[in-house]
């Protein structure tokens, strides 16, 4: 995707977006709510018209209703989009059939997918009776029956328990090992860290950083992350910490401070000292940055709002 712009009225959902996916990799598309991930995916599949820019898939120009490209893609939607009145098996059969599978080929692939998502025993049951994790698995399975060359997963693990999530992450790895290219969208750092070869970080409709995990973290490796829980958080405290030379960003969220500062600058002591003066510290740690910190440094925002109080400062 090159220089893609998509507007909804006044809102620019994709703002000169550049995104590249290499055959065979798992690309993690990471970004907060409203970053434009879903919009990027919809344009990539040819579901919505874009205002300008260029999209090509498998070396061919993508446009709305390019049936040839669509046949080779699979999409796992952010919402669970299976038919609740049909059984798991019937859902898979229908989606396989939409992609032109018939007869034995369809039977075999449905069987394969049922096994893969661990629902063989539940094939005859309706998704209404499934747990959240099982529904998510079926939602993923529906995109796999036709063996897509490119699989696009839009936040496939929203709202499920850790065990099901791990099962899904393992499955995604297996899918990629089978030769399928995967785009994996999420706002969970841990997920991209666990499975993605390359990561593109999106915010406000553009890619703001892109590379392997090591490359991304390397960008801010010369920095330390100090996490601090202040006993009496205040704006004055935030301002004083921010004023320390070498401190790059301060994000305060209800008493939890995340401070990015030049490594080995001795700032940890200074931060401690200021915080003590402002009512004390109940907890403090300092470590090398992770992906979350990369995001924090680049955007000054947390990837997910852990709670509504505080926010960025």
């Amino acid at each position: 995707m090159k220089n893609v712009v998509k507007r909804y009225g006044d809102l620019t959902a994709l703002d000169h977006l550049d995104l590249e996916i290499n055959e065979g990799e798992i690309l993690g598309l990471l970004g907060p709510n409203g970053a434009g991930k879903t919009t990027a995916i919809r344009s990539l599949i040819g579901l919505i018209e874009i205002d300008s820019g260029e999209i090509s898939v498998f070396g061919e120009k993508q446009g709305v209703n390019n049936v040839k490209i669509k046949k080779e893609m699979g999409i796992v939607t952010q919402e669970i989009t299976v038919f609740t009145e049909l059984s798991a098996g019937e859902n898979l059969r229908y989606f396989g059939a939409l992609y032109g599978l018939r007869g034995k080929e369809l039977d075999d692939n449905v069987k394969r997918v049922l096994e893969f998502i661990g629902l063989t025993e539940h094939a005859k049951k309706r998704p209404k009776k499934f747990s959240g994790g099982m529904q998510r698995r079926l939602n993923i399975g529906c995109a796999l029956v036709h063996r897509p060359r490119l699989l696009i997963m839009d936040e496939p693990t929203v709202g499920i328990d850790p065990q099901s999530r791990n099962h899904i992450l393992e499955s995604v790895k297996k899918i990629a090992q089978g030769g399928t290219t995967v785009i994996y969208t999420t706002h969970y750092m841990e997920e991209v860290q666990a499975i993605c070869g390359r990561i593109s970080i999106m915010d406000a409709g553009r890619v703001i950083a892109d590379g392997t995990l090591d490359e991304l973290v390397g960008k801010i490796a010369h920095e330390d992350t100090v996490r601090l829980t202040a006993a009496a958080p205040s704006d004055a405290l935030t301002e004083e910490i921010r004023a320390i030379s070498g401190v790059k960003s301060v994000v305060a969220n209800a008493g939890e401070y995340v401070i990015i500062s030049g490594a080995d600058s001795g700032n940890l002591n200074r931060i401690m000292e200021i915080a003590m003066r402002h009512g004390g510290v109940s907890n403090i740690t300092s470590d090398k940055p992770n992906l979350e910190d990369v995001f924090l440094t680049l955007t000054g925002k947390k990837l997910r709002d852990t709670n509504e109080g505080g926010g960025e400062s």
Partner: protein
Amino acid sequence: MKIFMHYLRRASLDPIGLLIFILLPVALVFLNVEINVATSHEIRGQAVATNVVLMIMLMFQLMSGSYISEYICLDLKGATRWRLLAAPVSLNKYLFSAMFASLFFSLLTGAIVLTLGYFIYDVYMGNIVIIIAAMLLTALFGQFLGIILALLVDKSGTCTAVHLGISWGIFILSGFFGGITLPVVGDVFTTYGTPFSAAIRAVMHSGVGLAVFEGGEFVYASFDNADAILSLGVLAGFVAVTGVAAVIIGRRRPI
């Protein structure tokens, strides 16, 4: 074909839908015929049954168009839309498959009511070709109405409610609860002025409604095929207008 079957299957799995669109009309036929026959002074069972069966058959043709709006709202408006359209199948193909499934279901209801009427109450069918044509056209009108509503209203529950509201508006206007003569337009609505009255008129004039009780049995003497065909033509006009309206609204305000 696969998609058409998919919608048929889903319609057949919907217990409330089956109840309302298969069981209810059958129950209504029994109820109405029994009550009317029991309370009428002359034994005109056959004539009463004929009227009840055909009337209920046509009413349900008009109303069962609410199936299509439900499927449009469920599948082509919400999140499922993206998944369905990501497949190499066009929006129109989904739309028409769902419409034909809905139409099929509607005609099935009609066929069941007619068959029961024929075998149990010995309903007189008049000109069966005209009856089938009226059934088909009324059902098509119901489908187009359903599509238009789905294009304009987002919630399937609201669509169904409005659909039923409009259907009953049409029944009342058509003189279902006794003839109404309005100023200016006169009795237009109770004759050809609504799809329902045109359909009824076509059916009646194909022979059914002109039965005369003579010497202990019915004589279906005076057919008026010309009027029947004229009524069918008017009905076809209604269908064409709603069909065109659906296309125009669909272009202006795509799903």
